[in-house]
């Protein structure tokens, strides 16, 4: 009796609160969440910097000023300079590009792999399901950083050798740019670490949605499988997926920094926050600004993604859809 009364009450609230579209409702709930909005601002700014940062930097990220090595923050160098006299602010702005591209690309790759594997597992079941779950278990059982280090150590040399061979064969300058090797390895390692999470999420979503009553009702109305997938299963699986992607973007950026910190990430000259933190750490007693700049930036972005993820989670929470 009590539960009936409670559901009846909350239903009235929802009916009155929303006379519009579910997505609009979700956006309204997201905007009403202060932390999420605070989180969105740095994220938008980060993406803006990733695109336009290089045009805004006061100095080139490689420009070395030997007269001002290890300079403290000043009006000329707002965040000071590093050992080689490079402007820290410029390097942080460039680093946004590394962080965003690594985040986007690795998340996209792992999302696609996870979507395919997860849907296959969830929909086909049986042996396919068993194989996919086994693969995710194996991947997840290995520590992420160890996996990245192993990949870097085992694949980097052969890949570079292959690039050199290709250069000698084609005389195409592209194959001389070894930073591509770094990027491919970092993207690959990140995707490998992250796809099992997406695959499991999607598998779980499909398994749970497939047994929902509205799917049974749609089948009872004679709807074909393709239509049920596109109209019923996928839209209802989107909410948790959006939340996971938001968290995953932030997670990938942090992981990339961790790789760089350990020396298996993107190698110089492309600036990476993790690498800058790692370099700055050596001198943090005498020149704390080298550590503070990238570390604070990293912290802001991490917290922002966490807040946005929480906000999205609340906004898209299926509990409130009464379905």
């Amino acid at each position: 009796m009590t539960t009936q009364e409670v559901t009846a009450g909350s239903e009235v609230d929802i009916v009155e609160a929303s006379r519009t579209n579910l997505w609009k409702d979700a956006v309204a709930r997201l905007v009403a969440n202060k932390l999420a909005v605070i989180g969105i601002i740095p994220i938008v700014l980060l993406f803006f910097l990733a695109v336009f940062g290089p045009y805004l930097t006061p100095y080139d990220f490689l420009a070395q000023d030997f007269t001002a090595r290890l300079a403290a923050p000043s009006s000329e160098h707002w965040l000071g300079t590093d050992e080689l006299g490079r402007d820290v602010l410029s390097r942080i702005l460039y680093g946004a590009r590394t962080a965003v591209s690594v985040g986007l690309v690795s998340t996209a790759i792992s999302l696609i792999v996870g979507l395919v594997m997860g849907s296959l597992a969830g929909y086909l079941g049986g042996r396919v399901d068993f194989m996919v779950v086994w693969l995710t278990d194996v991947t997840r059982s290995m520590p992420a950083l160890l996996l990245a280090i192993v990949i870097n150590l085992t694949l980097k040399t052969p890949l570079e050798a292959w690039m050199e061979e290709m250069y000698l064969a084609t005389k195409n300058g592209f194959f001389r740019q070894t930073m591509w090797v770094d990027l491919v390895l970092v993207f690959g390692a990140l995707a490998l670490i992250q796809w099992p999470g997406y695959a499991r999420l999607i598998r779980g979503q499909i398994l749970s949605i497939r047994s929902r009553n509205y799917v049974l009702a749609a089948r009872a109305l004679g709807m074909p499988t393709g239509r049920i997938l596109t109209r019923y299963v996928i839209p209802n699986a989107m909410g948790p997926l959006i939340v996971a992607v938001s968290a995953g973007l932030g997670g990938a950026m942090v992981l990339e920094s961790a790789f760089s910190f350990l020396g298996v990430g993107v190698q110089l000259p492309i600036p990476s926050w993790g690498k800058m933190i790692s370099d700055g750490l050596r001198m943090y007693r005498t020149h704390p600004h080298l550590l503070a700049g990238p570390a604070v930036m990293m912290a802001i972005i991490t917290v922002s993604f966490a807040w946005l993820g929480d906000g999205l989670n609340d906004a898209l929470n299926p509990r409130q859809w009464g379905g």
Partner: protein
Amino acid sequence: MSVLLDVQGLQTRFRVRKGYVYAVNGVSFSLEEGETLGVVGESGCGKSVTMLSLVRLLPPAASIENGQVLLRGEDLLQLDLRHLRDVRGGQVGMIFQDPMTSLNPFINIGTQMSEPLIYHRGMSKKEALARSAELLEMVGIPDGEARLREYPHQFSGGMRQRVMIAMSMSCEPAVLIADEPTTALDVTIQAQIVELVKELRDRSGVAVIWITHDLSVVAGIADRVIVMYAGYIVEEAPVDALFEDPRHPYTVGLMGALPSLEGETGTRLTTIGGSPPDLEELPDYCPFHTRCPYAIDRCRTENPMLEPVADASDRGHRAACWVDIREVAVQSNGAGASS
């Protein structure tokens, strides 16, 4: 009256960790055009699985082992999936127990309602929406056109069930299978839904299979009733004959468990002790004997078939019991009189 749906020897079982659970065990019944058949039994007696088997909407662990489901002479169990989809929604409409979860929360009511019309009837989106608005008004949701743009969470439970009914009736099916459509609703809404289905039935002539565990609902809507227990039909009779002259101990027990308006207050309702068994093999005993007050030795060694009862007021009255429960009652009365 001609036979619309003829089910013969339907057998469905579930694969479980150790072997099988036998959910539907050789169920046979028929449904005439325009007839309303009530199916009663407690939870887990196989009534829902039986109905899902008819249009093969079973979960993956279940398989139909045997039987025929002839809809106007066409065996649905042999039909390929493409034609089966035309039957689902086209000729057989279904409504389910929980209207709160039976609608896709992501699609507005209009789009959802027009899908079967577009798919089965080849209507354009515009025609389908116009028809959906009419259907909403038909099931008693006023201002249908405006409500088409709304989402399921903006509808109450009773209204959602009305939408489900409108959807299942939209392609003018020959049979409407209603699987406990009122169980999740409160009592006043239940009565409204029963009335609505009756009204639609009388207007369109659709045959209805109404699954429920509520005998009082069946009394109000059904022409004929089958009583199921442990995957068997244990009694089948026209609704009046069943209520006046129940012949299976289980039916008697179900009726005893009904609260009556005139009954003395303060007394406990009679119940049937225990719960129905999950059959792990086909029994060579009456599956009800463990809970049956009339059980005799034969019940433990042989499973009775569904056979016409003695001195029936109607030829269609059949029961599966070794004991003529009227005689037992008479005997005990006689004993009481002589002492």
